[in-house]
């Protein structure tokens, strides 16, 4: 479902003396449907960079990233947008929303984007918010004023509203209490059972051991090790 071939990444900082930072080189691996792969490695090893490249958020310098039959590295914006709408979900570490939009609309938006009716999208959004223990009195409010943990749960509800065939999870259980962590882990297990291919970053070792089928240490792809 997700396949990376010889991916490398450098950052060129034009306004800081054109410094070139090599982050990753020669990354190749693949993830099958229903499989969950954890990216590991010390902070700064390039886990998030790699994940952002798979999402098309960062531009790979060379190589190819295939999600289904789309090569993210060489696709037009509209192809990537369609892919993100229908195929590839992403749970980021931070929630980014239009201010003043009610939480329930924030969560139902990905469903509205794939053509689900307003009523059905709202019902699914409410079920997820309930499951993630967001009090009902908050649903009509914008999540911008919520606590960190609440925002993260809204973010997760939003990302799990539509059932994507491929998902990227950047620390989905960080800043959650035990009850909600359990709910999120169950959502991940349900997604796997549906055949979703997942790549995740988990600093929570127990969570990683429970949902991930294998680990990939990203530090092996750092250019110094390769050279």
């Amino acid at each position, binding site marked *: 479902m997700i396949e990376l071939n010889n991916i490398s990444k450098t*950052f*060129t*900082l*034009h*306004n800081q003396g054109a410094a070139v930072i090599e982050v990753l080189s020669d990354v190749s691996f693949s993830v099958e449907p229903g499989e969950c792969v954890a990216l590991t490695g010390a902070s700064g090893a390039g886990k998030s960079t790699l994940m*952002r490249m798979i999402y*098309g*958020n*960062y*531009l790979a310098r060379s190589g190819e990233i295939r999600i289904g039959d789309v090569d993210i590295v060489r696709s037009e*914006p*509209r192809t*990537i*947008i369609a892919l993100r709408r229908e195929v590839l979900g992403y749970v980021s570490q931070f929630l*980014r929303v*239009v*201010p*003043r*939009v009610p939480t329930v609309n924030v969560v139902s938006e990905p469903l*509205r*984007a794939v053509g689900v009716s307003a009523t059905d999208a709202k019902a699914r959004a409410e079920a997820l918010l309930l499951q993630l223990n967001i009090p009902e009195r908050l649903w009509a409010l914008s999540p911008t004023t919520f606590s960190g943990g609440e925002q993260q749960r809204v973010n997760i509800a939003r990302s799990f509203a539509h059932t994507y065939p491929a998902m990227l999870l950047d620390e989905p259980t960080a800043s959650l209490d035990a009850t909600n962590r359990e709910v999120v882990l169950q959502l991940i297990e349900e997604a796997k059972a549906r055949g979703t291919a997942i790549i995740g970053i988990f600093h929570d070792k127990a969570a990683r051991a429970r949902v991930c089928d294998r680990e990939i240490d990203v530090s092996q792809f750092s250019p110094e090790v390769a050279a």
Partner: protein
Amino acid sequence: MTPLLSVRGITKRYGTHIGCADVSFDLYPGEVMGIVGESGSGKSTLLNCMAGQLVPDAGEVVFDTRANGPQNTVTMSEPERRMLSRTDWAFVHQHACDGLRMGISAGGNVGERLMAVGERHYGDIRGDAKDWLQRVEIDAARVDDRPTTFSGGMQQRLQIARNLVTGPRLVFMDEPTGGLDVSVQARLLDLLRGLVRDMNLSAIIVTHDLAVVRLLADRLMVMKSGRVVEAGLTDQILDDPQHAYSQLLVSSVLQV
């Protein structure tokens, strides 16, 4: 799929000064594209060339018209272009007073676009006008008030209603949230997002506000000195800019 708008080699000079040079891109139905750059970078010149308000010195703008398929709007006759600007196109100005008639009522402002495309039944026009006022969150009871009695945010929403009432397929926006209070901006952005999705609109938004393009635009063009220096997916350009100028632009935004 046929692009809705296909721009090839658009160049506009002001004497020896370059307004914009050799700009080409394709816009597909339902896509929202942002154009960013500092003032004087040529983004408004480009927008005006595309919307038929300025005649480019070179290049073509091919629009997929509802009636006759793809047509070069640069070479078509003035009446044809005017008809397009009343039916398939909409133009939202930065200053609402440039896009509204300040001397006639809010309902008249919306109704005028309808009459321009042949609507004649007073009751229907008034009904549509009230419906659109509500869609842009203006109380229908204000239908007979002049826009001069409206706040800046309301005027901007009225301008949007006036533009969208005829069901256009392409909307040109020049700094649509510029000059508005931030709280009003947020509401307007949410409104625009909903309308773009529900009406499957394509839009080209010129702005210097990177937060606005992040929320509204699918893709982005960065302009400097009249040329496009970088183009691509909005979040990719904002989070991993490749060109020196885009890096400077993104890193210059003050963090709140």
